[in-house]
Structures are given as structure tokens and as C-alpha cells.
């Protein structure tokens, strides 16, 4: 008898189990955020045009020697517009060089956008067909990479850089990389 009663409770137990499992799924983070597979790996080689001016092209060597942010953006990307002021603020406040990768965009539209909103970037790389994007594991814009002085990717932010993401996740990485660089140079 008690056994039959226990069996009656089984469906409920299974249901509760499934609910708990699915609930745990919420804690795993956003399903649309892919794990950053390139962390600790060198920034890929590239040789791509700029948005005009001198020099006419940029390569990986231009990234080396300093801790930098590399921001993948486009004029077709509304979130990029939202993070634009934040990037300008970060550049002004910390003096960090932000390199812009204009991703699958129209260069004329990009120049007009920068003329209108201001240009927070140290220099520009034009990835018109998205090949550098594929090499970087980019699957949307904006994405922002922290690249150390040796050209190694140390952090990747998928989606907008906001005051919160900067303060909580990106700035600590930048600060520790800069401190490590200063210590290395003093030696």
C-alpha cells in the first residue's frame, strides 16, 4: 500500500526534478553568449585598409606595444550607437587606445557616422567582407577585445560596453595588464 502511494508521487517527483533542472539552466548564463574561445591566443594576422588618411593600411604590428581595446562596430548596428559615447568616455578618461574595426559596413557611411558623433578611435581597420571577423570569432557587433602589449587577446566582451561592463569586467583586466607591463618595463 505504502509502495503504491510512493509510486503515485513519482510523476510529481519527476516533474519537480525537471523544473529544478530547467531552473538550473537559467543560472548557466545567456545562451546567446558563446564562450570566448580565443582568450589567451594571439590576435590574428591581418593587413587591411583604414578609413582614409595615412597610413592607408594597418596590420597586426600596429596593435603591439600597448594594452588596447579593439572594438568591432558598424553603422548598421544600433547597439554600437548606444555604446559610442561610453567608448569616447573611456578613451578620454583612461587614455587607452581604442582601435575600431569597421565590420561589414559601407566606408562612406562609417566616415559620416564618425564625423557626426565624434571619433573615439586611435585608428581604424576596415573589415569590409568580415574575414577578419571570422578569424576573431566575431558573430555580431559590437564586440570588444582587450589585447595586451604582445598582441594576445585577454578579454572579449560580446555586446555593448556599458558603464557596468567596463567597471566590473573590462577595466580590471586593463588595469592588471597595464600594471604587469609597467613592472616588466622597470625590470
Amino acid at each position: 500500500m505504502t509502495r503504491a502511494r510512493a509510486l503515485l508521487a513519482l510523476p510529481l517527483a519527476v516533474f519537480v526534478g525537471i523544473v529544478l533542472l530547467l531552473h538550473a539552466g537559467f543560472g548557466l548564463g545567456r545562451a546567446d553568449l558563446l564562450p570566448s574561445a580565443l582568450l589567451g591566443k594571439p590576435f590574428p594576422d591581418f593587413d587591411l585598409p583604414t578609413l582614409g588618411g595615412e597610413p592607408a593600411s594597418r596590420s597586426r604590428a600596429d596593435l603591439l606595444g600597448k594594452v588596447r581595446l579593439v572594438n568591432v562596430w558598424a553603422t548598421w548596428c544600433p547597439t554600437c550607437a548606444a555604446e559610442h559615447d561610453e567608448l569616447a568616455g573611456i578613451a578620454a578618461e583612461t587614455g587607452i587606445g581604442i582601435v575600431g574595426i569597421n565590420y561589414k559596413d559601407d566606408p562612406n557611411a562609417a566616415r559620416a557616422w564618425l564625423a557626426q558623433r565624434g571619433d573615439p578611435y586611435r585608428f581604424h581597420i576596415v573589415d569590409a567582407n568580415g574575414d577578419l571577423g571570422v578569424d576573431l570569432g566575431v558573430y555580431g557587433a559590437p564586440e570588444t577585445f582587450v589585447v595586451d602589449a604582445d598582441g594576445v587577446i585577454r578579454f572579449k566582451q560580446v555586446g555593448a560596453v556599458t558603464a557596468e561592463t567596463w567597471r566590473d569586467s573590462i577595466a580590471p583586466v586593463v588595469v592588471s595588464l597595464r600594471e604587469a607591463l609597467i613592472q616588466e618595463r622597470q625590470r
Partner: protein
Amino acid sequence: MTARVARSVAAALCLAATLASASSVVDAFDFDDPALEARYRTLIAELRCPKCLNVNIAGSDAPIASDLRRAVRRMLEEGRSDDEILAHLKERYGNFILYDPPLSAATVLLWATPVLLIVLGLLVLRRIGSRRDAVALTDEERSKLEALGVENP
């Protein structure tokens, strides 16, 4: 009669539309080597579009899927092996991009769950079967069923 014809035509059109949308997106890629093209078709069917969450890059017309197809084609033409191409993309996009993820600590549940469910189902079936054999009708139940017209209950 005409209504029936019209209905069949409409049904056929719906079916055609469904089949058309289910077929893969085709790029204007023509390979000189049919073997290379076959490998290309297999690879893009095995790779998952990172932006669209549940479509392979063969079936997605998202810009990123088209970029990835171009990358696969370029690497094939450079003479890289299938494994090298998958490894190259996995290095950038992680296991997420593989529709056939390797067995690891993170995916063991994914691989083991179907087997566990089948085993569980078989156990339940066996249990139900054995219980059905064990339960016999009482004389009272038998006479009630006979009264209702059931032969040899």
C-alpha cells in the same frame, strides 16, 4: 469539383513553399572539383550558425553564416583537411559551432541522457508487464463481468 481542384492546388503550393524554404541557401560558388564541393556541402551542414542558435550555416542566410561558408571554401581550396577546418573554426567559436560535439565532461549528459531514458523506459515496461501477469480477477469480479456479457473474462 472546382473547389476541390482549387484546394489541391493550394495544398500543393503550400507544400512547395515549405520545401523551398527548407532547402539550403545557395551561394554562387562553383567548385572545379566535385569531391571538394561534396566536402564543402558536408562541412557547412555540420557547422552551426553562431548567430541563429539552431540552424547550420548551410541553411542560414545570416551574414555571419555566409562569411563562414566563404571561410570554409577558402580553407578547402588551400588544401586543408576537414579536421583542420573544423579545428580552426572551433578555436574561434568554441564547441558551439559543431553540431556534432565531442564527448567531454561538459557534454557527457547530452550524450548519456538518451541512453539513460531508454534504459529507464525498458525498466518501467518490464515492471508494468510483470505486474499485469500477477494481478488476477477475484471471483466476484469475474461473475460481474460475465453478467455484463464478457466471455471467459
